[in-house]
């Protein structure tokens, strides 16, 4: 049996290796491995470098925002790329979508609050939640900001209304919160609160409110499993994480750019 090699020195990833199949081993050689990158500045460049070194898949741990040159470079490293986003887990997002059973969404409301340093990632993941529940890409139509808080009106597919707000919490020890509601005959309520250590998905229908089963698997184990599954599929099943991140990052950049210009649009 050929072992699955993981290149990582990220403690949360090292911690979960024992939860994977016994042939998973730590390696320092990118070639033929799953390479875990920290998501600090420059991760796009390092992702391409890993691909060039022969990595079979890359996992990016909490990717930060990317500037315009890196954004252009997001496409096509030619290998599977899995993004471990703090407030947007793909399995939880899939649970929320599946529980709606295809029922019409009539509006999506996203509310985020967190430290200034978290704002970009918070908004990006909030936008990602809206994209998931709206069923497609978003377009920014209006932005209003006071600096401390910002409100945004967006449109999803078929002009679906989406609103987003984010507020900066200046207190030390504060942590990010994403709250999402998808309104309709079936209503979805999402709470992702990393500091409180809780992720909740509730689905309300005429019959009552159902709470999704908690996902006990760590985000890091999930990310590694997805990367290994993509490798095993030999290209037949490739994660859409980069394309989704790219779409969410573009919307976020547009919002933050409007805020930075200090005027409504």
């Amino acid at each position, binding site marked *: 049996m050929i072992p699955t090699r993981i290149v990582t020195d990220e403690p949360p990833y090292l911690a979960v290796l024992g939860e994977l199949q016994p042939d998973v081993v730590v390696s320092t050689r990118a070639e033929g491995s799953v390479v875990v990158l920290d998501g600090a500045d420059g991760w796009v460049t390092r992702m391409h470098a890993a691909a060039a070194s022969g990595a079979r898949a890359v996992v990016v741990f909490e990717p930060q925002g990317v500037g315009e040159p890196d954004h252009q470079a997001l496409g096509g490293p030619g290998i599977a790329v899995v993004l471990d986003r703090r407030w947007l887990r793909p399995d939880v997002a899939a649970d929320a979508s599946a529980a709606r059973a295809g029922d019409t969404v*009539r509006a999506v*409301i996203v509310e985020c609050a967190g430290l200034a340093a978290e704002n970009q990632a918070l908004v990006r993941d909030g936008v990602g939640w809206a994209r998931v529940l709206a069923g497609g890409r978003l377009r920014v139509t209006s932005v*209003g900001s006071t600096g401390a808080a910002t409100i945004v009106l967006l449109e999803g597919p078929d002009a679906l209304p989406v609103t987003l707000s984010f507020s900066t919490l200046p207190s030390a020890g504060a942590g990010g919160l994403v709250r999402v509601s998808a309104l309709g*005959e079936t209503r979805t309520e999402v709470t992702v609160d990393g500091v409180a250590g809780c992720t909740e998905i509730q689905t309300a229908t005429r019959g009552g409110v159902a709470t999704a089963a908690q996902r006990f698997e760590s985000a890091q184990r999930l990310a590694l499993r997805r990367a290994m599954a993509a490798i095993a599929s030999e290209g037949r099943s490739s994660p859409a994480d980069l394309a989704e991140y790219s779409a969410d990052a573009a919307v976020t950049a547009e919002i933050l750019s409007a805020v930075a210009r200090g005027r409504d649009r």
Partner: protein
Amino acid sequence: MTYGVGILGSGPGVVALHLPTLGHLRNEFQVVHIADGGSGRARGLAAATGARVSIGETELLADTDVDVVLVCSSPEHHSRQVRAAAAAGKRAVLCEKPLALSPNEVREVIDDCRASGTVLMVGTNHYYDPAWRQARKHLAESASGVQAVSVTVAVPPNHRYHEVVSQQADLLAAASAAAAATRPPRPDLSDPAIAAHLVGLLLTGLAVHDLPALREIAPAFERVVYARALPPVGYAVGYLASGVLVQLTGVMVPGGADVLWRMALTTTDERVEVEFPPAFVHPGGGRVRVRGGDGLRTEYTRGREDGYLTEWMALGDLLSHPTSVDYGALEADAIYVMLIANGAAEFILQEARR
């Protein structure tokens, strides 16, 4: 003391809201007179209460047993009827929203009530809900400034709530049909004029329940950030007031999940959520939950009474102390609603002209 109540109107708000609510407050209020506009529904309602019946407002206002006039007629009659009640020397008026349809009308109503010493209250029940009182107290004690407010509303048709507070099925059906006949079944939201009109109506008729509370947080209206109508019937409006950004999103859904009516206030330290119960029913007050910036979650004990009961109880208190009526606040509330509604409607029309 028990105050005699005269009711102008016989719509669903009377059948399923105020009559059942007043049934909980029999020691304080007794319905003595009901007047409709000629529909005949007042007679059916009076049969259950023993009240006198008339058409129009003249007989009711001349009825000396009527201390309190409850105005539940169509909005275009409100200001005239409130002023007539004040002129007739009635002790109090509880007017369903809106109080009037223009700033001038508002000022005339307020001036008349102030001059005659008539106690005036506008039926915006969330302001009186113990949950809002608790949230307000929490915000005052925490002394952290509110940065943004988001009010999210999703309401299915009312009949499921009517049915659990009233067995007057025929009257409810007739009242609901009459109310529905005044509304277009499916407004063409692609027409900016229709969309603007609809958003204005929904802000003055639905979002208005929260606006007196929001005015306490963000009193000085500055500008609309965005506004649009939502299909099938709804609104999304963002505005800035006193440096606070406010988002109002509401949609009337054809069925499905129970009402969601949530006001979320984000301060510099925490998020305070107030979740109000559905209209018409009496399950107790709303829920107040606080999420601290450090993740600590707190939920306050729910009040035993809902906003409708406490609204009438507050009216009772004002009747005992009529000098404590804040006419200036009533006027400011009404003008605030109009500024937002008119601003949103104008925003939609301007966007369409671009």
